[in-house]
């Protein structure tokens, strides 16, 4: 990538860090802190109408303008970070944990379990993600636990496929055969022999999948099928303020930029992870 060549490198804690990577990590850290401390730092309660005008412009006191009801946009975006980051993180954790564990089990066990699991999850993968979300929301309604589970289920097949492909390679190594001959259990094999050898690519995959989930969650919320009012994540904020589009109101632009800043940062961070961390043996 161009950025890697252009960015200067500096040494910190024994690793060379890439400037773009550091900047991306800082953006992610900032959004994480906002997500945790949002209720303490918002200037106005999110439900309060503080502006006489709707779709107000940016001005002192209302740094990001006001939304379609005259509520403070800055507060709403800060609180939206909680839902977008929180739900996506929960979903990606469930998806990657289940996918990776199943993938490793399938690779180690092989046989019919592997075949059935792979065939079934491949079929799941053939359902377009947005459509799956639509159908589930139509069937059981939309709430935070349903959203987390749906998003997790949609991305389990991908995590499974990725982890299984990695684990199958490790599974042919001599030390696995030795461990098998020693009579170790499957749990030991996947936990102590395979996982340490695939953990770094799995973590990079975790980041990418987080981006997919943020995008899908925002997409669903934008369609009105994600978080329901009065709760609002970034996608829902864009939806409720879409009426401000013809006036180019900050209320519709800022939440979009928030999503973009988060997803682009995660992508850049993964691209620019220090080589040493990626290559060092576990």
């Amino acid at each position: 990538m161009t950025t890697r060549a252009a960015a200067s490198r500096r040494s910190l804690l024994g690793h060379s860090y890439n400037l773009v990577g550091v900047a991306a990590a800082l953006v992610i850290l900032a959004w994480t802190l906002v997500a945790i401390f949002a209720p303490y730092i918002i200037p106005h309660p999110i439900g309060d109408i503080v502006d006489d005008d709707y779709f107000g412009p940016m001005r002192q006191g209302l740094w990001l303008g006001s939304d379609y009801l005259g509520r403070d946009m800055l507060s709403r975006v800060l609180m939206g970070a909680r839902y977008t980051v929180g739900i996506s993180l929960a979903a990606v954790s469930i998806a990657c944990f289940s996918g990776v564990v199943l993938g490793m089990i399938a690779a180690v066990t092989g046989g019919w379990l592997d075949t059935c699991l792979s065939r079934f999850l491949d079929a799941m993968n053939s359902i377009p993600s947005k459509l799956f979300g639509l159908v589930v929301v139509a069937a059981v309604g939309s709430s935070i636990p349903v959203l987390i589970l749906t998003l997790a289920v949609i991305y389990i097949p991908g995590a499974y496929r990725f982890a299984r492909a990695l684990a199958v390679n490790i599974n042919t190594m001599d030390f696995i055969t030795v461990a098998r001959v020693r009579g170790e259990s499957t749990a030991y094999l996947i936990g102590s022999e395979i996982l340490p050898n695939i953990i770094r690519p799995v973590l990079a995959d975790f980041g990418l999948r987080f981006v997919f989930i943020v995008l899908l969650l925002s997409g669903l919320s934008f369609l009105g099928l994600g978080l329901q009012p009065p709760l609002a994540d970034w996608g829902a904020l864009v939806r409720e303020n879409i009426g401000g589009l013809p006036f180019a109101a900050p209320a519709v632009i800022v939440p979009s930029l928030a999503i973009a800043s988060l997803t682009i940062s995660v992508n850049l961070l993964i691209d620019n992870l220090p080589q040493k961390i990626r290559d060092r043996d576990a």
Partner: protein
Amino acid sequence: MTSGVLNLVLKRLAIALVTLLIVLFAVFFATSMLPGDTASILLGQAATPEAVAGLREAMHLNDPAILRFLRWLLGLLHGDLGTSYANEMPVAALIGGRFVNTMKLAGITTLISVPLALTLGITAAMLRGSLYDRIVTVLSIGVISVPEFMVATLSVLLFAVYLKWLPALSSVNEAHSLTDLVRIYAMPVITLTFVISAQMIRMTRAAVIETLSTPYVEMALLKGASRGRMVLRHALPNALGPIVNAVALSLSYLVGGVIIVETIFNYPGIAKLMVDAVATRDLPLIQSCAMIFCLGYLFLITAADIVAIMSNPRLR
């Protein structure tokens, strides 16, 4: 084509068929998980228990799920998509015109985005490392990293708000002349083209770069072939398989894309119909729309896989 390739292709088709059954079952199962009894919802609160029981009997709601699934499947084979709950019209009639609209949108987008993306992807790979390549790469990563609705809102801001070239909403029924038609389709097609092309450019570029790094292309360079000849004559024929594969895979992003684009631009297509059906919980309509999308998606990814198999010269 030898029997090896034929076998692989047939195997892939069989897998697609099995997948289709699983997908159909998943769609049916998910939509019949709806809490609340369909019969009492249809009849309203004033219905007597006898009337509800009668309707349940008439709609075969008392049968086990697997029987209802088979009956639904049989209906599908006869072209019977069921009747919409919301307005009592046959689903097939509701979908018909909408389906044509969506196919028009998808078709125009494909016609524009495929040549565009292939040109950009191949030239970026040829000029790898140049400023042009960097701009194309960064832009396509940017488009992939943001949600589709953001691409849509930004294009509305640019073309409809600042430049005032195009209207923000489409209404197919008001098309009287060619210029009307262009104005109606422009915004949705531009948005979809961005989303689809970004994927296609990245995959095409990667495929061509991989071929360009093979020994026989280096050989062509060493024997003094020009850069254009090296790419067009030596590299491209071998990269064709991966490129067609990339095109089919990218087109499957149309499925997700149209759902957002039809909603945001109020385009009267099948995706808009489905999103509205979700809002009114009109199950037969959701089932049929979901099925059409799954079919399209499955068709494209199966086509991508089969192209990948056929283009592998080692199997020929």
